[in-house]
């Protein structure tokens, strides 16, 4: 295969309290406030998050609590007001290119065909278009996009667009992938199938994933660890380690363990409800 996938031993069985690895990502004491027309708006209170290598970590929290802002900081696109982000010992503050980042909107460039959107990351790295396309084709086939290579984003359904955006992020091939509400705009059924598809991919590629969502079902279904944020200014209120076994199936959502956890989350969330 032209595309080189780093396979690691499945870590689903590894204890979540495993020793800090050299590939863990540590977010420590990150704060952020914005100035707008002379007024300060604090968006993030000090946030500390550990993202163990190879894990699927989710963040849930009310709208406006600074989740996307935190992602931008991790991706090196926004300087934090204070705090640091490290991989192993190395600070990656302000360094672009360490993470694959999928923004809240699918952000496919409307003037590029799907395949050209997918190879965008490779193209920027300097891989010739022809070769990049060669790398992308088998992936598109595998993940249900074959036949749409030459279509433009506007000609695809929402689910397909999300898939393409996700493939672009994957093909960019960083060790950690940030996904900001990738399925927020999809309807319930499409969302379900996309979640399964994401889990499938994650098991294939086994990258570290940091995931933002509003949907509690989604967070539980996908994650190893869930960080629950408070309302703005956001901080980590709870850290929940999910012990549901993998691989997970849709039917698991109807099990008691699942519903216990959901009830717990819904309880926590209702504190925030009044702030809406």
């Amino acid at each position, binding site marked *: 295969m032209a595309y080189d996938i780093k396979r690691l031993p499945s870590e689903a069985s590894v204890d979540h309290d495993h020793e800090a690895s050299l590939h863990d990502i540590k977010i420590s004491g990150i704060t952020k406030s914005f100035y707008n027309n002379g007024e300060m708006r604090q968006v993030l209170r000090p946030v500390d998050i550990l993202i163990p290598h190879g894990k699927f970590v989710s963040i849930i929290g009310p709208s406006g609590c600074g989740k996307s802002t935190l992602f931008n900081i991790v991706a*090196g696109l926004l300087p934090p007001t204070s705090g640091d982000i490290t991989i192993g010992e190395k600070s990656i503050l302000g360094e672009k290119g360490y*993470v694959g980042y999928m923004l809240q909107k699918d952000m496919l460039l*409307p003037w590029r065909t799907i395949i050209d959107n997918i190879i965008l990351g490779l193209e920027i790295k300097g891989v010739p278009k022809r070769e990049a396309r060669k790398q992308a084709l088998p992936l598109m086939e595998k993940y249900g996009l074959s036949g749409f290579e030459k279509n433009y984003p506007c000609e695809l359904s929402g689910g397909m667009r999300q898939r393409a955006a996700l493939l672009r992020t994957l093909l960019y091939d960083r060790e950690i992938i940030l996904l900001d509400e990738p399925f927020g705009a999809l309807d319930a059924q499409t969302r379900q199938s996309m979640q399964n598809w994401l889990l499938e991919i994650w098991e294939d590629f086994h990258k570290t994933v940091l995931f933002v969502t509003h949907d509690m079902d989604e967070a539980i279904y996908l994650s190893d660890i869930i960080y629950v944020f408070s309302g703005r200014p956001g901080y980590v209120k709870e850290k929940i380690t999910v012990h549901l076994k993998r691989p997970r199936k849709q039917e698991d959502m109807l099990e008691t363990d699942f519903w216990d956890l959901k009830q717990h989350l819904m309880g926590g969330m209702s504190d925030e409800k009044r702030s809406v």
Partner: protein
Amino acid sequence: MKKEAYEVEYYEPKSVLAMQADRREEKHRRKQKKGIRAGRILLGVAILLFWEVSARLGWIDDYYWSSPSLIAQTAIVQWKEKNLAYDIYFTSMSTIGGFLAGTLGGAVLGLSFWWSKTFAKIFEPYLVMFNAIPKLALAPILIVLFGIGFSSKVMLAFLMTVISCALATVSGVENVDESMETLLYSLGAARWQVFGKVVVPAVLPWMLGSLRINISLALAGAIVGEFIASGHGLGRMVIYAGTILDTTLVWVGVIVLSLLAMVMYFAVVELEKWMTEHLAIYRKA
């Protein structure tokens, strides 16, 4: 209790009805389209007829207003005996030349504003100011700068177009979706990569959208150029006709000019459509 919590009834799809009603709808639409075309022609004919009759019956002063029949006669004479055809050609060429150059120049100028917000902010009022200078007033200087030949008309058409196109491009630049830039930066792109892969394609539809205004401006510029100094062209013809007080000939010039303007306008509209469809230029919402 389990089966009592809800009841389900299943349905089969009924056969699809013949869609005769919809055919009616489509016919109606087609008819409407034809109606519009007919309406346009009718309106034109009505205007001409009213004009002719008014002139003949003396409702309007036919020295100033001439009449469609007289205008047509004069136009034919001009076509056959003088070089109306060449005048049209001359004006069209300088317009198109200036239009192309101005669009290109304006695009480059406007796009350059993406590179530095400070630079952009400093230059903007000067652009506005320059755009507002009545070019006709600069006649003597323009002659010194660009001469009185064909190239001077092109130059004026260019000057009229370039700022308009630049301003449209600047609007486009200001409307580039920042998260697209963010995306590219997150993929480790350099500034020129963001420029080439996001800014330019994102601004293209704005530039395309300004084309239809620009072609009119370019024509106006070419005509001003011919007003200032020229041996050929429709602008010269009109000025000449005005000077020798031949109102019918003025009308010939005016009408040929507006027809030319309209042809160019719709040609540009078609070009815009074609480019949007064939060059993978996306439509802004």
